[in-house]
């Protein structure tokens, strides 16, 4: 038997044991949901599945042992109907996807790889649009995950939660955070207020949290003329919505150690940067008072504040994957299922627990040991408290089963 086939067999038997030993909970109102599955041996996805009772659901998982399992964010009258028109859409929970894949992190340069399928050229970092060797555009990407990636995703998650709770008035009980089992988090909002929102309405919410289309004039940051004298007025710390966020973000920015490079990247002239850097404390104090004093610094006019504001908006926005939120028929990963690319559990986490949640420990399922042989260079990774690697191509190592599953699912090693 070929080694990849052997690996898949092991993965399937381990996944099978997991589904047999665990009573996977059904998602809320599961009989109105559409389910979708990807199997180990078949290409494509089985869609339009529905379950009328829990035992039928468990039986399906145990019998078919899916590589990946999904369910709809939407509620349908007839989830089994083969087309969307026939399903009878009743509404959908609001879903946000925060994926480290879409975040700019330095770690990607060290652990993500690409291979040109045409000439075999390889490289580290993000996949280029064109192979530098043969100019082919068919390039495979092998992505990796590390603490830095997942912590960046968590930072975005915290920003998103603040928008949901403070601005949208969503309660903690209405929000479920789910670790995706791979590179990020899914945030489910179960609230009557969002259930019937159109795709356009959901897009507007995404634009809100990502700060798309914010115009500082609309937040009140404007130049006015009082008795012939020009003056700048703007939002304060307590202003509702983006106004207050902008002030907080500027204060945070002036407290950060890399403010100089940020101001430079914002396109502010050198002499103006000098004024701002020499008066950091003064700016923080002026913007922290109510009413704030936006015209505290001579020589820093409205155009400079607008440049600073545009950076501050970017820093305090939450980066979410728009297509996931606006698609009202989207299938999302089934909670408590296993992710076929890592073997990690797709695990719900409460808002209180998220700070401490450690995907490399808390989403790990398998126990025991196995020997593997590496097909390729493998960067360092962590499972639980233990750090493994890096490993070289053809290296044989005995590893804990959870690490073995991760490597086999990632297709970077085989059973020896």
């Amino acid at each position, binding site marked *: 038997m070929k080694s990849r086939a052997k690996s898949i067999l092991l993965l399937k038997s381990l996944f099978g044991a997991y589904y047999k030993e665990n009573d996977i909970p059904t998602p809320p109102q599961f009989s109105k949901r559409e389910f979708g599955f990807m199997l180990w041996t078949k290409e494509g996805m089985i869609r339009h599945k529905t379950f009328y009772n829990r035992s039928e659901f468990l039986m399906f998982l145990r019998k078919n042992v899916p590589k990946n399992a999904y369910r709809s964010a939407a509620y349908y009258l007839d989830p089994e109907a083969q087309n969307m028109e026939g399903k009878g859409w009743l509404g959908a929970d609001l879903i946000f996807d925060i994926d480290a894949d879409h975040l700019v992190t330095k770690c990607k340069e060290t652990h993500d790889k690409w291979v040109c399928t045409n000439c075999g050229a390889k490289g580290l970092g993000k996949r280029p649009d064109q192979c530098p060797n043969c100019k082919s555009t068919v390039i495979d990407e092998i992505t990796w995950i590390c603490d830095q990636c997942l912590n960046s995703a968590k930072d975005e998650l915290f920003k998103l939660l603040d928008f949901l709770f*403070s*601005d*949208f*008035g*969503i309660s903690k009980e209405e929000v479920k955070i789910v670790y995706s089992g791979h590179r990020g988090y899914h945030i489910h909002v179960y609230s009557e*207020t*969002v259930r*019937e*929102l*159109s795709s*356009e*309405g959901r*897009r*507007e*919410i995404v*634009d*809100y949290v990502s*700060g*798309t*289309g*914010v*115009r500082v004039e*609309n*937040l*009140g*940051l*404007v130049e*006015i003329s009082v008795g012939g004298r020009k003056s700048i*007025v*703007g*939002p304060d710390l307590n*202003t*509702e*919505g*983006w*106004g207050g966020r902008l002030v907080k973000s500027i204060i945070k920015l002036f407290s950060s150690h890399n403010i100089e490079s940020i101001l430079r990247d914002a396109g502010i002239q050198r002499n103006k940067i000098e004024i701002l850097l020499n008066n950091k404390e003064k700016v923080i104090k002026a913007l922290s008072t109510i009413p704030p004093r936006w015209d505290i610094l001579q020589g820093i006019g409205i155009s400079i504040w607008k440049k600073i504001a545009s950076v501050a908006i970017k820093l305090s926005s939450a980066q979410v994957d728009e297509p996931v939120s606006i698609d009202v028929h989207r299938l999302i990963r089934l909670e408590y299922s296993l992710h076929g690319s890592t073997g990690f559990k797709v695990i719900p986490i409460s808002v209180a627990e998220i700070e401490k949640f450690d995907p490399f420990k808390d989403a790990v399922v398998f126990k025991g040991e196995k020997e593997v042989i590496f097909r390729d260079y493998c960067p360092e990774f962590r499972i639980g408290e233990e750090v493994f690697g890096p490993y070289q191509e053809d290296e044989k190592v005995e590893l804990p089963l959870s690490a073995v599953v991760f490597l086999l699912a990632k297709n970077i090693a085989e059973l020896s």
Partner: protein
Amino acid sequence: MLTKEDLAKYPSIEPAREYVRQFNIDIATLADEYPAIVNRARQILRDIIVKGVYTYVSNDFETEILAFPVVRLFIDAIGDDWLRRRFAVAFSKRVGQFLQKEENEKILEIARMPGNVSEHGWNLIYEIKRVGVKFYEWKLHFKDYLSTAVHFHDITWKMCNHPVSNGYVRLTKRELARLLAEAFKEKILEKRVPKRFIELPDKLMRILEDIEELIKKYKKEVIREIPIKAEITGGVYPPCIQYILERTERGENLSHVERLFLMFFMLDIGKAEEDVVNLFRKMPDFNEERTKYYVKHAKSKGYTAHNCDTLKTYGICRPTHKWCSEGTIKNPLVFYGRMSYILHKERRTKNEK
């Protein structure tokens, strides 16, 4: 408490419908029993067709209330989409004007009442708040705000440009009036009786034929044919423009930004001013003089069509072509230029063969 005058000003709301129901009017005898109402309905329709205005007669509230469902009956019986939209836009504009001057208590009552602007009524609160130099008088739940504000493509209507807290979006009185007027429009557009189910007695049928004749005449004289129509399906336009052109062709209302974008784009690619004006003839609120002025002004200023990034922000971008989804173009004009070149080359190759 809503008065008879209120029902005359807002004849589409639930209490007005209830008021009409009490009369137990039969379509078969409508023209004989209520000739004044039928005449008023006919006048309203004439004004909608010719002037694009839903007029108001302030000295006979009862006729105003009763004429509204008769106007709708004629519109359903005619089954012309252009007329339906022109009616909805004209009515919504009138509602907006009334609401701007309306007492707050009345606004609250109308907006909150189920069935008037939405099935359950709006979650609206009166609360004054000063933010910077702006005074907000109202706050509306984001669910209700989004149900209507997404129809506007102006950046000031983006939720992020309003104070938002604890689920509520703050609005000025003017903004709320505009939003409510749009909700009135959507509401009257959503309900219709299919033409095939309506059978009018002879007297009403004759009026209907007169109105149809007037529509035909107006369409011939004012709407004319759209000269650019033939190119709509030619594939030369970027998907965003294509979508706007298709809606223009159907006589759907366009937002202010969509109109500007279409205008700038068409002028940029070298269309004559008159051809650009003709594009807007089917708009439900078309005004020839105003359109000509805008087009002339845009041409003299040499405005350029919006960039893709700006269009994304306005929700106008429709990245259905791979050039758009892959982000290889930054402005729709680049799409047009590239596609024109390809199509031209293809045509030449075909001719040479």
